Structure formats: structure tokens, C-alpha cells
């Protein structure tokens, strides 16, 4: 590709960071030193060069980790190395909110101000931080994003300061009550999560280099845990320890019964996907296996970004080998030799543990060529997300892996036919995959005896909000909402439940009258709710739901990819309409007209909500109005009296 590149060369640090990932450049064409004698009569290009675009996001991460932001010179160098046009690279760079495009302090705290942390004083924490460190850096904050139009994300405070902070959407630490992701750029970059982030001082100390011991988190179960059987017991850094707890028996069994056998068991188990869409896993695997096009790919979706969700993080952090083993079984069953696990950038510990598990498994011959003497090949590569909720949508995730903007694709064609790199792909959530281990070991039918007829197995629920023991709980399908809340110690202070957010921001609220709701796919559907990613966020009777709804609207406005009109403009209008929706409904003498105009706001919102559901490209736009709509329906924000027209 004939690239037109102007304006700046990389610094030595930037060049070194990219070269550490990609190796030294082969010629002047790829940004190396010019050597006319060597480069003058050769043609650089072809698939070997353009086929490396999938390394674009990893290269941006490498530079960001080293110097804290991606400069024009660094981007130019990456473009030369990967043969990507600078305008397209810029489009990708500005898509991910963890990536900065202007110089900023080396140490940055990304402070969660999302719905769960807000219930525990995130706003106060942000105010305290602002008093200590000055205004937030822009780029990650929904509020600050408003003024970045046309200029991309620019840093707010000066780069000469040694530390800065910015607001962040949910960091998946909702069981800790408050959280901050700390990133420190440098030759030895550091990325870790401070959770709980007790106060502003703790964050400033962490930015200055203090390390905090990881806090223990609550993990519980009704009955015998399956998914969490090893969590907290097994040493996540040791393959031997994993084997002691029964690890890699499932892979051995899978090789014994063969691909057809594995798919038969998974189909018999009636396992439904745990990422939110509840698609039958066996059907998905079978469809990919049958595809004539090659190669096939396995993608493990670990971009868990739904506010209130942290189940996949716990699995990856506590039991990383189980995830790798399950992916391997999936690869053997679907005829794939390459797997990707796409982990959100806010999960450094999960990424590190999965990374070391992959390395150790490879060392032991459990990944790579001829796995366990089966003659089959499978390997796994980690991809780190850049801070984009939308990349949890599978086709957006494929685009992100390919080095493109994380914009969802139109379906059909479905991933089983046209997935990552245009090839048949099985994309599964972390929790879904880990279920496969027991299914293979016990047999699908035996496994399916847990749970209900339509919702088999156990389910992980992430309890947070106004609850005594927030944490991750595993229960057989069929437990009620009330049982879950009691399992987690109930609402503190004996207060009543005002509402429960089920399924995360993309889910919806249910009222206290739904506490006996059976937590199954069919039970939730019957109640007009969704289990989604397993979020149960409890709001007690004193909670300010208006604040949460506003944050949810802000969240979707911030996370929409911007591709289609109903979602791009609709999420903005939804945020703007929200104050009008919650206008006082009990009209005093003088405000009668305002009640009717609020009713008209409600009718506009109603139509907007239908259009977003009907006409958006992907699930983000289709679910973005769900939580607000459910709150309106439950009367949680006073619904205006239908008046006027």
C-alpha cells in the first residue's frame, strides 16, 4: 500500500516499544533506516505486510504502556510497520477510551464512577480526587467527552504533572464497593486495580507507587459449586495445583470421545450461552464444525464490560487454567487451531494470570502441536481490549481483533459462517466455556440434571449495590431473587428493597413485587426481564434511582460506537430527555402545563425507545433504553400523568 505519511517521527522510546512487539523493521519501507542499495529495487507489500493489521491495537497498547499516550510520530511508525493508512489508524486510536492521543502524566488513575460504585460514594471520591489532583483528564469521561468533537480525545491537565486521573465506566469490581485502575507508563509499565479504592489518599498513594495487598472477595454458592469449585483453593499460577483439583481430565476425556462426542455431550447438556444472548452452545459448535471454509477460529469473549458484572473476571483470576482448558476442548471440537481470548483492558490481573496459564500449558504440551498426543493443534493468543463496552458484542470484537474500529457488523452472516478474519468462528463467553469441562466429564445428560428443564446447570450471579455481602454467587438455575439476596446477607440495616437491576445496564429494573421471580431464562422472560450477564444490583428504599438512571444513560451515550443513527443520536437524546421524564407528576396549581409537557416528553421517549430497539444495528442500541423504560413502567421515576395530547 502506498502510504502517505507526514508529520513526525517516533521517539526512541516509542520506536523501542513498537519494535519490542513487532521485532526490528526489515527495511526503510517499514520505518527502519533507509538503505538505498538494499531497499531501492524491492517491492514491499503484499499480504505479508497488510496481513499484520491485527497487531494495530497491541502496538498502540505497547506505546501507551511505554510513554503514556500515542503521539503522531508513534502512530506514523506503527502505520509504516503494519502498512495501515494513518487516517484509519487514527480512527482506531480514537475509538478506545483507554488510549490517549496527547501527552499526559505517566501515572493515571481510572476511577470507577459507574452505577455500583456510585451507591458507595464514587462521586465524593471523584470530588476529593479533583481537590487533590485537579480536574480529570479527558478521554475516558462521559461528561468530558462532550467537548472532544472534531479534535479527538485531548488531555486536560498538563503532561508535566506526575499523576492524573479520569473517570471510568464500570471496572468490574462491583463487589469491592469502589475501584480504580492504576496505569503507570514506563520501561517497566505497571497496570493494576485498586479495589476497594478506600479514599482519594489511597489512590494518590497507589499512583505514587504504593502497592496494596489484594483484598479478599466474597464467593459463595447454594449447593455444590461447579464453576467456582476451585476458586480460592487452587493456586492460579500452578498447573500442578490445577491438576490436583482435577484439571485437564476433561481435555483427556474430550480427546478420547472425539470432536463429535464432545459436541454431542454439549448439545445434550442444553447449555445456553452465559454472555447475555442465551444461544445454545452445542448448536453453535456444531455449525462451526460443519463449515467447509478454513481455518476455523475460537474466540473467548472476556470483554466483560456490562456494568455490575464481574463473574468472568473472578473465573479468569481464580481459575485461569480452566478457561484455557475449555478453550482447547472447544478448538478440538470445532476444528480450530487458533483461539483468541479478548480480555478487557481494565482486567490486568486476569490478563496476567491467563497469560501465565497459557505459557505453562504450552510448556506442558497442553497447547501447541500434538496436544496430549492427539495429533491436533491448538493455541491461544491474548488480545487486550482498549476500553470499549461495544467490543463485548461479538462482531465488534472480531473487528477489534482485526485491528479495526470496534463497530458491530450486520448479521446475517453469523459468526459461525463469517467471523473473525472472515472465517467460521465460535465465540463464547468465559462462563459458558468453563461449563464445558464438567459437561465433558459427567456427560451432557447427567450434567443437565442440575437446574430446570429449560435452564440447565448452574449460574453465576454478581451481587452488588445495597447488599450485606456483595460478591459472586453460584446457584443452580431456579433460585429466586429473594433467595439470592438472602444468600448475600440481605439489605443492610434491615431496609426494604426499592428495586433490583437485573442483567446490568442493558437489562432492566424489577420491583420488590418480583422478589419471588425464578432466576431462569424462562422465568426472567415471563416477567419481561432478562438475566443478561447475571447482574443483581440491589437498591434499598433510600436509593436515588434518578442518579443511577442518569449514569446509565450517560454510559450508553459514551459507549455507543456511533455507527447507526438510532443509537448514535438516540443515546444522546435519551440522556437529554431524562430530566424531562422525571419532571414532577403531581401538578401543583401553576404547573399543570408542565405535567402535560412531561407527558409529551414521555411519549417522545416511548417512540424513541421503540425505534432504537427496532432499527439499531446491534444489541447495544437495542437495549440502551431498556433500563429507563423499565424504571418508568415500575413508577420508579414518577411517570407523568397522560395529559394533553
Amino acid at each position, binding site marked *: 500500500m502506498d502510504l502517505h505519511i507526514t508529520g513526525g517521527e517516533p521517539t526512541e522510546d516509542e520506536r523501542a516499544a513498537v519494535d519490542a512487539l513487532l521485532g526490528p523493521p526489515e527495511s526503510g519501507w517499514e520505518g527502519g533506516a533507509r538503505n538505498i542499495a538494499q531497499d531501492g529495487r524491492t517491492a514491499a507489500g503484499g499480504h505479508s505486510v497488510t496481513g499484520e493489521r491485527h497487531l494495530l491495537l497491541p502496538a498502540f497498547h505497547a506505546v501507551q504502556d511505554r510513554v503514556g499516550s500515542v503521539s503522531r510520530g508513534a502512530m506514523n511508525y506503527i502505520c509504516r510497520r503494519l502498512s495501515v493508512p494513518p487516517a484509519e489508524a*487514527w480512527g482506531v486510536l480514537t475509538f478506545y477510551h483507554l488510549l490517549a492521543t496527547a501527552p499526559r502524566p505517566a501515572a493515571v488513575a481510572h476511577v470507577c464512577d459507574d452505577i455500583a460504585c456510585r451507591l458507595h460514594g464514587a462521586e465524593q471520591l471523584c470530588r476529593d480526587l479533583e481537590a487533590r489532583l485537579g480536574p480529570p483528564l479527558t478521554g475516558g469521561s462521559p461528561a468530558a467527552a*462532550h467537548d472532544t468533537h472534531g479534535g479527538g480525545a485531548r488531555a486536560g491537565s498538563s503532561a508535566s504533572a506526575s499523576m492524573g486521573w479520569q473517570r471510568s465506566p464500570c471496572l468490574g469490581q462491583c463487589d469491592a464497593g469502589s475501584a480504580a485502575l492504576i496505569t503507570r507508563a514506563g520501561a517497566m509499565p505497571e497496570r493494576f486495580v485498586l479495589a476497594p479504592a478506600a479514599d482519594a489518599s489511597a489512590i494518590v498513594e497507589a499512583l505514587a507507587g504504593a502497592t496494596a495487598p489484594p483484598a479478599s472477595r466474597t464467593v459463595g454458592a447454594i449447593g455444590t459449586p461447579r464453576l467456582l469449585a476451585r476458586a480460592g483453593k487452587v493456586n492460579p499460577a500452578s498447573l500442578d495445583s490445577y491438576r490436583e483439583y482435577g484439571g485437564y481430565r476433561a481435555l483427556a476425556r474430550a480427546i478420547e470421545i472425539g470432536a463429535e462426542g464432545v459436541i454431542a455431550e454439549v448439545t445434550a447438556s442444553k447449555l445456553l450461552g452465559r454472555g447475555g444472548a442465551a444461544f445454545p452452545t452445542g448448536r453453535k459448535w456444531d455449525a462451526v464444525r460443519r463449515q467447509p471454509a478454513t481455518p476455523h477460529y475460537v474466540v473467548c469473549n472476556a470483554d466483560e464490560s456490562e456494568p455490575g458484572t464481574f463473574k468472568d473476571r473472578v473465573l479468569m483470576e481464580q481459575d485461569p487454567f480452566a478457561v484455557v482448558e475449555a478453550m482447547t476442548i472447544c478448538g478440538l471440537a470445532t476444528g480450530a487451531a487458533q483461539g483468541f481470548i479478548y480480555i478487557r483492558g481494565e482486567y490486568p490481573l486476569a490478563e496476567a494470570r491467563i497469560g501465565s496459564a497459557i505459557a505453562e500449558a504450552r510448556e506442558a504440551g497442553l497447547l501447541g502441536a500434538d496436544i496430549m498426543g492427539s495429533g491436533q493443534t491448538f493455541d491461544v493468543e491474548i488480545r487486550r481490549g482498549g476500553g470499549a463496552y461495544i467490543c463485548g458484542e461479538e462482531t465488534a470484537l472480531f473487528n477489534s481483533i482485526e485491528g479495526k474500529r470496534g463497530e458491530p457488523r450486520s448479521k446475517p452472516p453469523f459468526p459461525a459462517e463469517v467471523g473473525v478474519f472472515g472465517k467460521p468462528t465460535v465465540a463464547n463467553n468465559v462462563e459458558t466455556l468453563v461449563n464445558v469441562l464438567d459437561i465433558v466429564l459427567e456427560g451432557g445428560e447427567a450434567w443437565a440434571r442440575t437446574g430446570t428443564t429449560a435452564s440447565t446447570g448452574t449460574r453465576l450471579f454478581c451481587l452488588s449495590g445495597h447488599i450485606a455481602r456483595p460478591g459472586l454467587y453460584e446457584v443452580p438455575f431456579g433460585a429466586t431473587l429473594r433467595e439470592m439476596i438472602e444468600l448475600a446477607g440481605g439489605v443492610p440495616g434491615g431496609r426494604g428493597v426499592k428495586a433490583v437491576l437485573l442483567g446490568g445496564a442493558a437489562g432492566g429494573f424489577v420491583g420488590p413485587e418480583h422478589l419471588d421471580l425464578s432466576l431462569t431464562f424462562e422465568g426472567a422472560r415471563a416477567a419481561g426481564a432478562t438475566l443478561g450477564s447475571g447482574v443483581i444490583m440491589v437498591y434499598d428504599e433510600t436509593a436515588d434511582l434518578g442518579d443511577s438512571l442518569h449514569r446509565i444513560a450517560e454510559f450508553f451515550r459514551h459507549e455507543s460506537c456511533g455507527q447507526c443513527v438510532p443509537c448514535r443520536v438516540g443515546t444522546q437524546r435519551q440522556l437529554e430527555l431524562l430530566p424531562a421524564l422525571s419532571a414532577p407528576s403531581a401538578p401543583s396549581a401553576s404547573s399543570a402545563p408542565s405535567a402535560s409537557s412531561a407527558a409529551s416528553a414521555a411519549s417522545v421517549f416511548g417512540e424513541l425507545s421503540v*425505534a432504537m430497539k427496532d*432499527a439499531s444495528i446491534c444489541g447495544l442500541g437495542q437495549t440502551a433504553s431498556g433500563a429507563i423504560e423499565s424504571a418508568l413502567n415500575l413508577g420508579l421515576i414518577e411517570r407523568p400523568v397522560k395529559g394533553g395530547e
Partner: protein
Amino acid sequence: MNDAIWFRLPPAPSSVPHRPPTAEAPSVSATIDGRAVEAPAGATILDACRDAGIDVPTLCYLETLTPVNACRVCVVEVEGARVLAPACSRKLEPGMVIRTRSPRVDLSRKLVLELLASSVDLSTAPTLVPMMREYQADPGRFAKAVGSGLSSASSAAPSVSVASVLQPAKVDNDLYMRDYSKCVLCYKCVEACGTDAQHTFAIAAAGRGFDAHISTEFDVVLPESACVYCGNCIAVCPTGALMAKHEYDLRQAGEWKPEAQSVTDTTCPYCGVGCTLTVHVQDQRIVKVTSPLESEVTHGNLCVKGRFGFEYVNKTG
């Protein structure tokens, strides 16, 4: 003199020679608005609708570009589907039952037009005016609804307006300007600049959500970018966000008079390719050059010379 066989003229062909036979494309039958339709396999719902004379509005769709199905104006209802389908990219499947004007379809189209009209300056997008009328779209509805909420909260209501993409026009070269106040983010210019026509890749979508926009790298001015000024992005822009500087200047001066323009097709004199040029003349001066979309040579595309190299004709003396 004996006629040598090779002197004999072949019989006059009775018709234009046929293409060599190819495998007959299987056809797909479906029902659109209660009518049975047939279309070749691989046809989109939009293709089938247009063949059947059924009008489906489009905005981000263009025959010469890969459908991106981003605007969602062309959505139709497919029986049994959970959500509406974009007619421009969704393939027609056997047995589909499609409704192009159901209440659901009309509501979504109306909302899409209202969302656009409330956030974008559509003053130079004439095709959208009849569309807005057809679907009874009210561009001011969101501002009214949002304003009503605020005014009820306090009696001294500040004048509120909803967020828009309004911004100063970018005029950074002599050939064309970019007014992103008018951009509906249809991606057509990006496609024309990229793999669908020019392979220059000077512009791409950047940012995210409501802040998504079309941009060069680091938002540099066009002369610093990869732009080769072919103007093929102008040719596909549906809203006048991208416009030749010449036309922009005339409009600014109030001297742009489409009704007083004559349009003549001719052939570009610059090189041997022979591109069809459509020359727009006003007051005996060339004011714009385009190329017909249906031209087999250009598909509407030109190069910098064909599109912008007409000033010498206007020079006198």
C-alpha cells in the same frame, strides 16, 4: 470469377451477440407488501423492491458503494424477525414476507429522520425534505420535549437546545471544503476514498458515539493528509457537507442559481481514458463538473483534473 469461400460475407447478425451462457442464477421468491416477487439469488431486499417498483428510501446507500447499513432509513419489517432489517444490505431469502410500510417501519424511519434533523444541518440535503414530509418527521420535537422538562423544573427556563454537530466549516484548500455540521455519517466519503473507489484512505471515521466524525489523522488539514483531491467524496456526499470550493463560494455570495444552470455531457479532454463529464454551466461559465453514476467508464468517479481543472475554460482574453 469464382467466389472464394473466404470472400463471402458472413450472414448479417440478427441481433447483438449474446454473452456466453452462464449457469442460470437460481431465483428467490418472496412476498413484499403482499406481492409475490422473484429476484436472483444474492439480491438484496432493496434490489427486489426496486425491481418491483416499490419505493424504499435510502440515505447511506449508493449503487456503486458497499452497503454500510448505518443510516437505518431503509429498514423494513421481515415477518418473524425480532427487529427490522436494513433493506440495502439484507439478502432476500426464500419465503420472506416483507412489509415496507408497516406502522413499525414508518415509526423507525420517522425517528431516524427526526434524530438526524435535530442534530445535523440538512439545508443542502434536498432529497431529505420530501422524505421528512412523507414520514411526518418533526425536526423540532426533541428540542421541544427536552425544553419542556427543563422549563417545568424552573420558571426562569434557560433557552435549551439539544446537542448537535454544528461547527465551523473547514476550508483548508482551494478545491473543496468540508462542513461537518452537515455530516450524517453515512460513511460514503470514507468508502469512496477507500476500497470502493480511490484507495487513497485520506479520511476515516474517528471518535465514538455522538462524537464520532469523519477525520484525517490527528485532524490535520487536507494538504497535510493523503488526499489527492479527486473529489470522489464530494460526488457521493448526500448532504452537501463536502462541496467544491467554487460552489461553496458562489453559495456564500448568494450567486449559486441551480435553476439558471444548464447541464451538458461531454468527454474529458485530459487523457485517453475518456471519462464522461457532466458540465454545469451558469451565466456562460462552468461552475461544476460531475460524472454520471451510471457511466460505465467512471461510475461517477473522476480525478482532480477532470473534476476541478476547468478554470482555464472560464478565463477570457
